[in-house]
């Protein structure tokens, strides 16, 4: 391929994606702010004050990074899943398919939109958390790298989901039955060192453990998982999802007859 990325087209898709979630900001940006505020009040302030310390910091400070990560995950995923699926369903995806836009450009454009939304939500949630706890930051680098890799990974996941989906129900099955349980079991609310050995070992298979811990390390400097391992796992998953998405789009799975 002479020119794998078409920059004007990429910019166009990205702007289109951002316009979409900003247009429906009441559905896309407000709910995470409300949910997270509730989490902060209930788990952080009310219950958290009785739990005491976890990972060497107050419980509130412990869960904030996890909750930010949780909103990044759900927003990156659902943005791309909903947008790509409705483009397929309303057939306006054809606008891109008839134009000389490479598949890589399409993937990057949609993923870029999902990442943009999840980062905006992350900023909103971080600001909200500022009302409840004073956040310390140990490593900006770790925070930025893990949040970006997590956002792209779940944006790619949402894209894959949308490619296979045949009905609107199909884009809520994975979030409900896979994503939510993995997130809750992914060490957002507890340190896995609290678990019995067996369940600690099982938890290692859950990729979200790596993201939450890598991200939390950036804030409190404490992690259940070595930061380099966390980043390595994220990079590998990202590459695998990207290649899979590219291969499916090239084959025309769910997009071309």
């Amino acid at each position, binding site marked *: 391929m002479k020119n794998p990325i078409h920059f004007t087209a990429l*910019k*166009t898709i990205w702007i289109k994606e951002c316009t979409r979630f900003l247009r429906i900001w009441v559905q896309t940006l407000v709910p995470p702010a409300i949910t997270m505020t509730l989490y902060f009040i209930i788990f952080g302030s009310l219950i958290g004050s009785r739990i005491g310390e976890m990972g060497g910091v107050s419980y509130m400070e412990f869960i904030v990074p996890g909750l930010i990560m949780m909103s990044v995950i759900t927003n990156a995923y659902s943005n791309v899943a909903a947008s790509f699926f409705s483009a397929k369903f309303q057939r306006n995806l054809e606008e891109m398919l008839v134009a*000389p836009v490479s598949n890589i450009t399409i993937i990057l454009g949609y993923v870029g939109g999902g990442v943009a939304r999840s980062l905006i939500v992350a900023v909103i949630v971080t600001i909200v958390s500022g009302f409840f706890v004073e956040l310390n930051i140990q490593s900006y680098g770790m925070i930025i790298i893990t949040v970006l890799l997590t956002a792209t990974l779940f944006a790619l996941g949402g894209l894959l989901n949308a490619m296979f989906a045949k009905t609107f129900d199909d884009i809520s099955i994975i979030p409900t039955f896979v994503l939510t349980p993995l997130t809750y079991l992914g060490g957002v609310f507890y340190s896995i060192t609290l678990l019995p050995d067996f369940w600690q070992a099982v938890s290692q298979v859950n990729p979200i453990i790596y993201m939450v811990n890598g991200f939390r390390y950036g804030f409190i400097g404490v992690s259940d998982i070595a930061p380099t391992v966390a980043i390595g796992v994220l990079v590998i998953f990202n590459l695998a999802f990207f290649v899979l998405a590219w291969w499916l789009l090239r084959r025309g799975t769910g997009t*071309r007859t």
Partner: protein
Amino acid sequence: MTNALEIKGLRKIYRGGLVALKGVDLIVREGDFYALLGPNGAGKSTTIGIISSLVNKTEGSVKVFGYDLDTHINEVKQHIGLVPQEFNFNQFETVEQIVVNQAGYYGVSRKLARERAEKYLTQLGLWEKRDDRARTLSGGMKRRLMIARALLHEPKLLILDEPTAGVDIELRRSMWEFLTRINKQGVTIILTTHYLEEAEMLCRNIGIIDKGQIIENTTMKSLLGKLNIETFVLDLESSEKAPDIKSATARIIDDHTIEVDVAKSAGLNSVFNELSEQGIKVLSMRNKANRLEELFVNLVEQGRETKEQA
């Protein structure tokens, strides 16, 4: 002269085994205004889907301005503007967003896209509506929005799949005028339709497709000529000398059967006169079934149904 489109041996078998195209050959010259006419289910949209790379072909080759779809897909795409049969824009986007974004996918800068958007939306009577959501537009406006969208990267070949379905007479006229104008400016146009009237008004050349096969590929003029001729089979009382008919084209099939081609306006009187002068008696007469004719009767009926619904 360059061919805007050259299709050879195009076959399409849909998953599930339906054979939609059975070896289509088609040539459209640069600058032409070409009609692809055929009844519902003939394979028009499938053909167009393949040319615009929304449908994968099973077999055959497609060239657009000399570029092969298999090896130069981006060049092929860049040369084509597509107006599909079904509305396929995002209903929640505004008119201007839709056309400007489409230009962006073709690599047109946002600044230039905005200028062209104003030009084409104005020409198509949509500039006032530029900030309206697409779903609030009437059917005719949506159709014109798709035409504007297809023109923003200034393609050399514009393909319209049943552009006037569901568009009222008044708007249909102005759309025809618009298309004629851009054709004069050098854009090659292919449109599919099942209204013979539409093809007649607009097009110079015509291909007729039925059940996945091209059954006629000719100029509009000669097609209309052919359609204007009716063939009759006359059963004659046997006579010693062969009938000699000058007022129409006649073919002697056997001793007591002849076929005559008569222009519809001319009528059969003169043929009968000649025969009776020669002392030949006509026993019976029937209209010879003509494949093309039959097809057109079907088309005209379909056209009527669609119009009544619209």
